[in-house]
């Protein structure tokens, strides 16, 4: 397996471009300004726009469903366990 050439030459340019684009995209997050300025976040600051409003109520509700359903997880509630089978 000595000095096996990639079967396509054009692939090299494409790969280089992809790498450059990738690096630029990663770093390019900076020149792309956050498009929602802090002074535009009034609506988002309202309690009605909170993903998680009342901790205890959510924990209880999550518990009721987790104990009766086979599905669990990704709810944003960090759980404790129980033997509620």
């Amino acid at each position, binding site marked *: 397996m000595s*000095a096996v*050439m990639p079967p396509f030459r054009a692939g090299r340019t494409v790969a*280089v*471009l992809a*790498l*450059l684009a990738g*690096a630029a995209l*990663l*770093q390019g*997050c*900076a020149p792309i*300004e*956050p*498009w*929602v300025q*802090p002074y*535009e*976040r*009034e*609506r*988002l600051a*309202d*309690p*009605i*726009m909170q*993903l998680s409003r*009342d*901790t*205890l*109520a959510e*924990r*209880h*509700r999550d518990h*009721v*469903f987790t*104990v*009766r*359903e*086979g*599905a*669990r*997880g*990704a*709810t*944003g509630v*960090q*759980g*404790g*366990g*129980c*033997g*509620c*089978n």
Partner: protein
Amino acid sequence: MVVIKSPHARSGGLPPEGARAADRQSRIRARHLIRAAGKALARVLGLGSGLFGGMAGTAQAVDLPPDHAEAMLHVYDGGGVRAAGPAVLIRKSLFNKVSLSATYYVDAVSNASIDVVTTASKYSETRQQLDLGIDYAVRDSLIHVSASSGKEPDYIAQTFGVDVSQEVFGGMTTVNLGFTEGHDAVGRKGEQGYFDHAEHWQYRLGATQILTPRWLASANVEALADEGYLGSPYRAARVFGTLVPENVPRTRSGRAIKFRALGDISDWFRGGSWGAGQRHSMHAEYRYYWDNWGIKAHTLEGGYSRYFGDKWLGDSWLRFNRQSAALFYSDNAPVETLYHTTNRQLGTFNSWSLGGRATYEYAKVPGRYDIKLSGSLEYVRFDYQDFTDSRTGKPYAFNGALLQLYLTANF
């Protein structure tokens, strides 16, 4: 793109010096790429080298969660099970550096569910759970460490978790990573001590993104792993029409992925007669769960909320969950298999729920404190496809309701 032609840029690209030089060359290339990638990552995470110093010139620091207290009374009644109890939560920050939180949760359960009634007799027991947490803010990150201990007469569950959330991209994106580890001791009523144990691990990764001044979205993934005694010592499985103790695998591995969107839709109601001039919002979420027991579940939820004047806030939501059975689940197993369970939690079913909540702002002094009172009611319905109600011979279904009455205060 700038490409400088070098004397070696021929078809092979290899300098004639030989293998060792080629190795050195590829190592140098790798180093360059790793350095560039590392710089890029550091920039994105705002950990900033001195030159670039953070995103868009902001030295934004994240705030500790506000001081908070909650007191709740919760009631669940459905399918023969009644569970009720109080719960309290206190959160207080110290020296503006850390925020401590404690939660105490009591569940007094009176269980006359179909499993209990058909295979045993009604019982009551109380579960108590204490959670403690510490939150610490470091520049744009919030680190949360928690420990919780839950006790029932025949079960002890201890968990420990760490969650880190990091604001990036000018505060528009929040990335969170979390890990929880649980150790349970499993006992049986009427026996001394604990006959077995169970371990649980959860790894979480998520991101919340502000899309517009009105909308935000989030995506979360979680990997769950369990090991040990994962069944119930009281539950029987039905094999060949007879009841035998259930036998479930001693390991379980699952994944969950959830997408959520939440938006302020006040502008939709601006001209009309329904809540013009009030804030309205809606949310939608979808979770897909799958594990190596063969269970696949889709959960969909949507809701709408609006303010009524300055003091009242109303929420409404609808939830739908559909699950397909575990591989070794059977209502009445026709063959003898290593694992067998008739636990309807692992069967095929649909569950629906419809809920509403009203919140009243009892007191508010901006910047000082606010007190809110809430009451919520949620109706649930479970429809099992492959679990028979042995009392009637038909597929089992039940209705239930959740009631939550609580007070929340920020101070």
